[in-house]
């Protein structure tokens, strides 16, 4: 497959050496033998015959009856699967602290979070425990941990990669994507896993979707700099690193252009209505009947309510309750439909901007990795770390996070590029240009 420069044996050595401390993995399969490119897989992606827990007690014993489409494709391309990585429970969280099986630690500073919800995958790549990893991204869950761990993370265009075999969180927002050491590796993995799939009716044929940019006019790429993503509330070292990196781009090839995305300040509110609503629907299937944890009770009602009480963690319950509220009679129009209308406006902001620019830049996160336990007391504080990443999920556009430096204390900083629907190629190009600017 030509991804990464680590052999499976070396990855396994690194797992043996560091995973007791980092806890990036929930299950390790690989025993150091065999040929293939060693890939780690977030534990919400199904591998036939292997446990898939979504980091929840609800699925602690669940064994996947089939391979996710992306797994089949990677296997066909020469991957071997090193194991399943830790995550926030059912992908709900921004720190991997919501795992029912304990947190993962950031390899750059073990007192800090690796980000979430794909924290295990990002930490595994950063610590050389795999050549590349798969994550999933609903509101930033690939990009934010990639930024916190100093690696590359791509959220593809919605519909570019099949969600068949991905344990669903929010179906209009979820995408599977690569977390890798280099931009080139992200492109290799993306090219393998992308494509329409009859088993996921939301996959779209990129060829049919031609908004090919007028883009590469006069051999220059126009980079939009949205004022709404460079305001207050950003850690000064993060802002500095991102701005410094941007201004190092070759002006012969890249022109920076100020733009505005006026509905940006509503994106997080919009997300925290739509996502819990979809979560409450998607997690209704965990009823103690079909699969998963089942409470031994006398009435059906008690089987449902006690299985779900004991199987789900706090954040999962919180979002299900919030989702049930915004979808309930009397509130549905005021919250859910309202949020879907605002979503249309957020998408329109991007459509308008992409008439003037080819790619849009921002810091991936407002801060570098925070300390374990720092934000667990206040859900809203945790949600605010998603502020720059959720718009891409709402609009369905692809977005990549690429390392662009470190803080004085050695914490990685990520720069994000958002592109037009199905123009991941442009993101790979800019991402590679950024990577060239940084010391090896």
């Amino acid at each position: 497959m030509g991804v990464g420069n680590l052999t499976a044996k070396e990855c396994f050595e690194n797992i043996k050496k560091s995973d007791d401390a980092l806890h990036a993995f929930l299950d390790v399969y690989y025993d150091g033998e065999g040929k293939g490119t060693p890939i780690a897989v977030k534990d919400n992606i199904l591998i036939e015959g292997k446990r898939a827990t979504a980091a929840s007690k609800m699925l602690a014993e669940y064994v996947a009856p089939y391979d996710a489409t992306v797994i089949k494709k990677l296997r066909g391309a020469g991957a071997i699967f090193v194991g399943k990585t830790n995550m926030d429970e059912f992908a709900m969280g921004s720190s991997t602290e919501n795992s029912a099986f304990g947190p993962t630690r950031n390899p750059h500073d073990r007192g800090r979070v690796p980000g979430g919800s794909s924290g295990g995958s990002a930490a595994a790549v950063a610590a050389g425990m795999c050549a590349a990893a798969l994550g999933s991204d609903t509101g930033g869950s690939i990009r934010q941990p990639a930024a916190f761990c100093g690696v590359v993370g791509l959220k593809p265009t919605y519909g570019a990669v099949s969600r068949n075999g991905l344990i669903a969180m929010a179906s209009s927002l979820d995408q599977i994507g690569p977390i890798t050491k280099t931009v080139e590796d992200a492109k290799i993995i993306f090219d393998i896993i992308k494509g329409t799939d009859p088993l996921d009716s939301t996959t779209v044929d990129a060829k049919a979707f031609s908004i090919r940019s007028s883009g590469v006019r006069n051999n220059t790429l126009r980079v939009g700099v949205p004022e709404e993503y460079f305001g207050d509330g950003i850690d000064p070292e993060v802002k500095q690193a991102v701005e410094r990196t941007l201004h190092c781009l070759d002006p012969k090839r890249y022109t920076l252009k100020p733009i505005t995305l006026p509905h940006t300040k509503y994106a997080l509110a919009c997300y925290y209505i739509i996502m819990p609503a979809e979560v409450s629907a998607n997690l209704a299937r965990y009823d103690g009947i079909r699969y998963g944890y089942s409470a031994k009770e006398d009435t059906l009602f008690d089987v449902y309510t006690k299985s779900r009480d004991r199987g789900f963690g706090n954040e999962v319950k919180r979002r299900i309750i919030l989702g049930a509220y915004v979808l309930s009679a009397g509130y549905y129009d005021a919250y859910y439909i309202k949020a879907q209308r605002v979503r249309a406006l957020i998408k329109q902001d991007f459509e308008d901007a992409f008439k003037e620019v080819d790619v849009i830049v921002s810091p991936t996160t407002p801060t570098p990795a925070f300390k374990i336990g720092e934000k667990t007391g206040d859900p809203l504080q945790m949600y605010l770390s998603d502020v720059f990443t959720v718009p891409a999920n709402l609009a369905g556009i692809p977005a990549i996070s690429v390392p662009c430096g470190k803080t004085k204390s050695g914490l990685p900083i990520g720069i994000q590029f958002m592109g037009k629907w199905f123009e991941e190629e442009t993101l790979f190009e800019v991402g590679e240009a950024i990577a060239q600017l940084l010391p090896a």
Partner: protein
Amino acid sequence: MISKEDIDHLAVLARIDLSETEKKRFFKDLEEVLGYVEKLREVETEHVEPLANAVGSYNVMREDEPPQGYKGTPEGVHVKVRSVWG
């Protein structure tokens, strides 16, 4: 805005047996989050259609057959559960 009775009702709708401590905590959390999302009221959306799928959706059909590898249930094709009444 949200009331304590709402939380009791939602716990039943969502089929989760929440403890009193959890209900108190979620009441507070929901108040905080709902307070934050209130800002959407400011947005003028009178003539805007709700957007559910960002890249457009269309029907994809398949034959009405069990999926590959489907093994059925311990009862065959039925699922046996506790009594629906009581």
